């Protein structure tokens, strides 16, 4: 155990990298989720089709394959990304594809009658989405987004394979330097669990805040 303690600086560094990677890619994923998710409702078929291609591509291939591709192949094609950036983009684009489905589903779950009420009051399409549909859809999205955030955190571990110095990568360094196995893995699993539990707590808090005083039942999705 003493040996492990000696490595606490790099464990802390790894934890910070993992959190940075999670937060930054969550941000990327969130933007993509809305852009791609809402594109599915576009009047223009070109926009809708692009959104579907994006979705199927990033949802259809493994995250690890996408990362290797971005890290090893893109540079050969002339696109140079710093490893952390490659990791953020890979994680963000991957999760963004799942998130876009959440956005689409939540908007679709707003009853048809609400569309009709907005039309009857002569709302424009933009106003309908901005003032009627999204305010009702966002609370529905939050729990699922919470689950996706956990998926994202776990996905960042895979980034260790493209040599981003996250928590998992640091555990590997410690293993090689100390020839210990059980201890580094147990420690990082506990750290992951703690980070994930904080994320769960934060989402629950937001969900409570946003539904407070309103009759919106926020369901945990499967």
């Amino acid at each position: 155990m003493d040996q492990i303690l000696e490595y606490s600086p790099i464990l802390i560094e790894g934890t910070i990298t993992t959190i940075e990677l999670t937060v930054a890619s969550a941000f990327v994923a969130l933007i993509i989720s809305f852009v791609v998710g809402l594109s599915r409702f576009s009047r223009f078929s070109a926009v809708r089709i692009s959104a579907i291609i994006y979705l199927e591509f990033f949802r259809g291939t493994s995250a690890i394959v996408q990362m290797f591709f971005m890290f090893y192949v893109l540079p050969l094609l002339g696109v140079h990304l710093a490893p952390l950036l490659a990791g953020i983009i890979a994680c963000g684009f991957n999760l963004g594809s799942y998130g876009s489905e959440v956005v689409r589903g939540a908007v679709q779950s707003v009853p048809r009658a609400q569309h009709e009420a907005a039309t009857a009051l002569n709302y424009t399409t933009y106003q309908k989405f901005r003032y009627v549909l999204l305010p009702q859809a966002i609370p529905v999205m939050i729990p699922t987004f919470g689950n996706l955030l956990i998926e994202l955190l776990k996905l960042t571990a895979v980034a260790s394979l493209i040599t981003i110095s996250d928590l998992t990568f640091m555990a590997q360094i410690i293993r090689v330097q100390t020839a210990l196995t059980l201890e580094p893995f147990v420690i990082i699993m506990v750290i992951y669990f703690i980070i994930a539990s904080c994320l769960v707590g934060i989402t629950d808090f937001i969900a409570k805040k946003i539904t407070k005083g309103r009759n919106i039942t926020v369901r945990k999705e499967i």
Partner: protein
Amino acid sequence: MEWSWQVALDVLPQMAQGLVITIEATFIGAILAYALGLMLAILRMSKSRAISLTTYWVSEFIRRTPLLVQLYFLFYVLPDLGLFLSPLAAGILGLGLHFSTYTSEVFRAGIENVPHGQWEAAKSLNYKPYQTMRYVILPQAIPPMIPPLANYLITMFKETPLLSAITVVELFNAANIYSNSHYKYLEPMTLVGAFFLIVSIPSAYIAMRLEKKYQRRGGGSV
């Protein structure tokens, strides 16, 4: 860098062998995930608070920590504790265990989504608990479970490349090993990505069809 068909042809046979392992891992892993998931769901719905809470936290721990780290753990730590697993067996166990925490939610939601009125109707007709489950609840709960369970099969398929980290030579690792010894990255990685798309897009389509097919019948118990 130029695409070389020579390299592509060279790596294909090895990838084909890897694909067999990938498919094996996916299906056995899925069966395990379904069986363990059902067990977890039953334990979770147990009347004993201790059993149900323990199940909950164990599931959450598994669900909130990365599969990659769990795989390392199963492969490198378990043997020290006396359980010796081949790489593929450890990989399948890891996949099955990790995803059982997801499938268990499908089972639970499937059963809980049967309207309350159905339990009451069965009770008012004097059905025994076993008869209620067997003749009333399960026939209604199972069809809606099929699409999400099929979706997890696809997800597991996409996660199999993680097994490369514990020396399983599946599709991705086969390509990766080739890359490492021939220092060619473009073709193998692109082919792996293409392989995944070829399998997962049609399967996603089939899963969608299943979803349509098994949508809850209207009427009945409104």
